[in-house]
């Protein structure tokens, strides 16, 4: 860390000394997390490593025991908090699709329109332009023909794409996505990654909680490996090494395994 100026230039969001616990059990311990501007970034780590917890804490959905989260998202590059006025409009969130009840009485278009609610503010109704944008984004994710479909009648991959479209209509600068590839077929996965790369090409920053280690190098240019603590962060080429993966996934065991099994067989 060489002073504020570097941070404000390079990072769009940072977390410092972040500790989050569920009850007594810490999930994140003294984490310094940096999101570089304009990158397509993966957060990788084993189950229970605190990946979702990390992005939920960034979004203010979880209250950390200690630490702070700052965004450098305004044009003046001054640090701001998620609670500051207008910041939430620049940040979009794609939750895990299993986090909601899809039997809710709403159509795909209804759900995508919700992405405009933050821009509208309290009480005001979506206008024609909002609906237009929602339809545009539905088309982008290949779901336009399903716009009036009840959401429980959609497949898992289609529901995921509806969530993605909902985030896209927010026209944000920074996107947090919690396992957007979970339970989707190969075709949908391809469509989603194309969209994410498109966002990056537009200068947006995308942070993705990712599960599939095989595709990290292909999809992302930046990676953070995490297991309660930050294990490593940086360019995928330099950071996504077998050694770091072992460190993240092996926990304490990795030392034992390494001591016994010195040939360092990869467990990817």
């Amino acid at each position: 860390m060489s002073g504020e100026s570097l941070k404000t230039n390079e990072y769009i969001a940072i977390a410092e000394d972040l500790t989050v616990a569920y009850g007594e059990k810490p999930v994140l311990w003294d984490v310094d997390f940096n999101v570089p501007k304009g990158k397509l970034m993966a957060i990788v780590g084993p189950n229970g490593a605190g990946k979702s917890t990390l992005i939920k804490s960034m979004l203010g959905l979880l209250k950390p025991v200690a630490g702070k989260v700052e965004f450098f998202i305004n044009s003046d590059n001054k640090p701001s908090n998620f609670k500051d006025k207008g910041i939430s409009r620049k940040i979009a969130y794609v939750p895990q699709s299993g986090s909601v009840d899809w039997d809710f009485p709403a159509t795909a278009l209804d759900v995508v329109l919700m992405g405009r609610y933050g821009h509208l503010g309290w009480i005001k109704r979506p206008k024609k332009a909002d609906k237009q944008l929602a339809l545009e984004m539905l088309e982008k994710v290949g779901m336009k023909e399903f716009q009036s479909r009840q959401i429980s009648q959609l497949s898992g991959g289609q529901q995921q794409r509806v969530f993605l479209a909902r985030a896209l209509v927010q026209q944000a600068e920074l996107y947090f996505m919690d396992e957007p590839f979970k339970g989707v077929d190969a075709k949908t996965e391809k469509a989603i990654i194309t969209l994410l790369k498109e966002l990056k090409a537009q200068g947006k920053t995308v942070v993705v909680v990712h599960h599939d280690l095989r595709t990290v190098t292909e999809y992302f240019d930046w990676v953070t490996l995490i297991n309660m603590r930050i294990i490593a962060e940086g360019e995928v080429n330099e950071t996504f090494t077998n050694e770091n993966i072992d460190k993240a996934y092996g926990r304490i065991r990795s030392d034992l395994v390494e001591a016994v099994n010195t040939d360092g067989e990869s467990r990817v």
Partner: protein
Amino acid sequence: MMDILSRLNNYTTIVVALGAAVLGMISGVIGSYSVIRKQSLIGDGVSHSALPGVVLAFMMTGNKSTEVLLLGALVAGILAAGFIIGIVKNSRIKFDSALALVMSVFFGTGLVLLSIVQKTPDSAQAGLSRFIFGQVSAILKRDVYIMTIVSAVLILLVILFWKEFKLFSFDPEYAHTLGFKPMRLNLLLMLMTVFTIIIGLQTVGVILMSAMLIAPGVAARQWTDRLWLMIVLSAVFGAGAGVIGAFSSSLAEKLPTGPAIVVVISIIVLISILIAPNRGLISKALRRRKSKKGWLEKGVKGGDII
């Protein structure tokens, strides 16, 4: 026939029917949110919890006018709702457990207080027990006015915060990331639910009020996938059940109105679950049979199924 007509045309019956209609309508609207948020038990919790409020209000004031008693119910209901939200927020106890806990403590206290009150000679006839099962015949024209005004305010709030309530009911965490404080919406919806319950207490009573809140929404959900249509249908079902229940209780001797209304709305639920298109049990069974038959035929004709 004349007898029946004159009974239905009775001033009291009309007031009662109007009151029941308004109550059914607003329960249907507000209860729909409990249904889609999968918090159907909230009505049960709050209404049971209102009982000690009613009795305490009487004990403290010696007054048994509806306003005083309902004010007591309101305070107890809000307190109970606050406890439930507080417990869920600040402990690891889940919503349903918190609700059961608060509800049984409040209702138990209410019953104890009620038995104390009923033992004191001068207030034996305080009529407090009508709040347990409800006694719609005790409803006055003034009560109907109050119910109508409260309902109008509640409906106005639903219209005003339509998009916020929809968003919050579907995905509260996402609502938070958009800058809408879910806690505020939760409290507002909870408060609106408490008010709905309070105005229904003397009509259907603390025990059956939860059915009044949930049943219209459950029935309406069967018929549509649109939230606004669900809420409108729910209001219609609730109001309809109110009117039919009120009239049938005035026709049949000693048929209490609250239970009569609940029986009617239960029949509506039953019918909806059975025959609604798409979501109804019968149409589901038919669809399954049809597709099974289709597979079999294809299998036989094509011979290369699987």
